[in-house]
């Protein structure tokens, strides 16, 4: 039986629901030098910001039990060099490319999106993923993604800047992630993705200071799988737009947990560092599972959870 792993988001279709998560696959070109990217459904780029960001002090990552704690600091070349240096390479990639946008306050998200929109006349970008996990500089540094009104406003302003699909990426570091998901939907998001990394800290007991100079970092990898699955479960029941699940996916089994929890697509992040060819294998594993259980498409997964 043929299995349809496509997913419709905001009037467009991703042929393959397995993507690679923002910050773990660069702009595609880094891995493409070494590997064929066929079999990856979508590449979510490293965050693009208004201005270049050099990134945080080093070390920027440390391994934790079954996880990875990072404080990269959104190091990226900024919107102008993104358009000059990265965008031209996207058309040649065998997958959809979704720009992950980060900013310091709601209006700036819209401004970065509008800039990318204006400099991409050929449609190299499939859509946008709005990373609302950043601190809101104008609101005293409170994480924008923790305040429903701010998330709704951000989605609304970005919506005015583009007709392409908008995915709002939710942070798990909130009291009620379902409420934030609803706010994104109310603002006009075509989908939500969850989860971004979980706040964490690890301390060097001999040096008596945090291993990461920034103090805290974002935890990813297998350690956060249950957090991501629970978030996906709760958000997908709170919204009527598609949910893209991620957090700790290392295998097809893990990805299927997300689909059963209500996700319509998934992203693989930290696992790419372990095996950069893992995403196509996960897709194949989902197909095999669907065949074994007579599931024709991703919506068939959603009614199965007992």
């Amino acid at each position, binding site marked *: 039986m043929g299995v349809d792993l496509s997913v419709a988001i905001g009037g467009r279709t991703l042929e393959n629901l397995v993507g690679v998560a923002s910050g773990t696959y660069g702009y595609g070109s880094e891995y493409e030098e070494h590997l064929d990217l066929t079999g990856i459904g979508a590449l979510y780029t490293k965050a693009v910001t208004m201005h270049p960001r050099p990134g945080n002090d*080093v*070390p920027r990552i440390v391994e934790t039990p079954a996880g990875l704690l990072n404080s990269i600091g959104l190091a990226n070349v900024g919107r102008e060099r993104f358009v000059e240096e990265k965008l031209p390479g996207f058309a040649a990639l065998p997958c959809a490319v979704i720009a992950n946008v980060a900013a310091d306050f709601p209006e700036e998200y819209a401004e970065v999106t509008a800039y990318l929109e204006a400099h991409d006349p050929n449609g190299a970008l499939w859509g946008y993923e709005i990373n609302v996990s950043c601190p809101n500089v104008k609101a005293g540094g409170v994480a924008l993604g923790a305040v429903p009104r701010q998330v709704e406003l951000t989605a609304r302003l970005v919506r005015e800047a583009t007709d392409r699909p908008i995915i709002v990426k939710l942070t798990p570091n909130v009291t009620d992630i379902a409420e934030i998901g609803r706010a994104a939907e109310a603002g006009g998001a075509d989908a939500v993705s969850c989860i971004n990394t979980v706040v964490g800290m690890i301390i060097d007991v001999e040096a008596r200071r945090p291993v990461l100079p920034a103090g805290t970092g974002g935890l990813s990898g297998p350690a956060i799988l249950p957090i991501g699955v629970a978030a996906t479960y709760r958000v997908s029941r709170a919204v009527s737009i598609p949910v893209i699940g991620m957090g700790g996916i290392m295998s097809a089994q893990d990805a299927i947990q997300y689909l059963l929890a209500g996700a319509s697509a998934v992203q693989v992040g930290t696992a790419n560092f372990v095996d950069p060819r893992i995403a196509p294998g996960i897709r194949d594993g989902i197909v095999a599972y669907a065949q074994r259980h007579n599931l024709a498409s991703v919506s068939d997964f959603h009614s199965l959870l007992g």
Partner: protein
Amino acid sequence: MPLFDGRVLANTEIASDYYQMDFSWPTDVRAPSPGQFLTVRVSRTAVPLLRRPFGISGFIPAESHPADPPEAIASMIYWRRGPATALLAGLEPGDTLGVMGPLGVGFPAPEPFSVPILIAGGVGVGPILFLANTLAAAGYAPLLLLGARTASSMPRVNAHHHVQVRRSTDDGSLGFRGTAIDLLEQTIGVVSGRLEIFCCGPEAMLRAAHECAVRHGLPAWVAMEQTMGCGVGACMACAVRVNRPERYARVCTEGPVFRSTEIAWE
């Protein structure tokens, strides 16, 4: 395709807690050059999670030894210090090694007719040994300075007969008494010719080699280390401070080898 399964051919302790692993290298994977590295998938479980980077300590092309089917042999020298390297130390001939490589930018060729001085300490011995043997085969007469804390932690290495090896130990139990940098200072004082310095080891050693080179007006190249995520330039984890407007460079792609004056030493 630089992602391959190598076959462990030998895994030998060459000093206390230092091992050399030899493994097969497919003929369709580019041959590595000295200073380049690879990442190894050490486990199939979530702990330890990340691949680990290691320098390459030697390479024998397929043409140079009999094997059926033909395959090259690569080596790495590693220090058993934590969970990943403990797993590596447990591998036996015939076991599989998941490799990605060769990665990064290695050492440049020294100026013709110059005298390369190579300094290694700790886990830096592998890449420097590969460089020494490659330069010797290319007609240079490199000086190889190996530093260790004490005689038992000095790795036993196979150097080309045109490599002149000098050893230093902090406690004087083998060779020169002092650090490899003390030995470097002494060597610069007695060797004539156009000297060029190549260094791989702990950051304090790299910095001292850089300062020594600056004092003597000599060019120096250093192989940097930083915790890595992807190993291919995609994640921005492996940053090192450099004297450029961008402030940071990536060890995995712009390095690991840098001109020592490029590094913004803290």
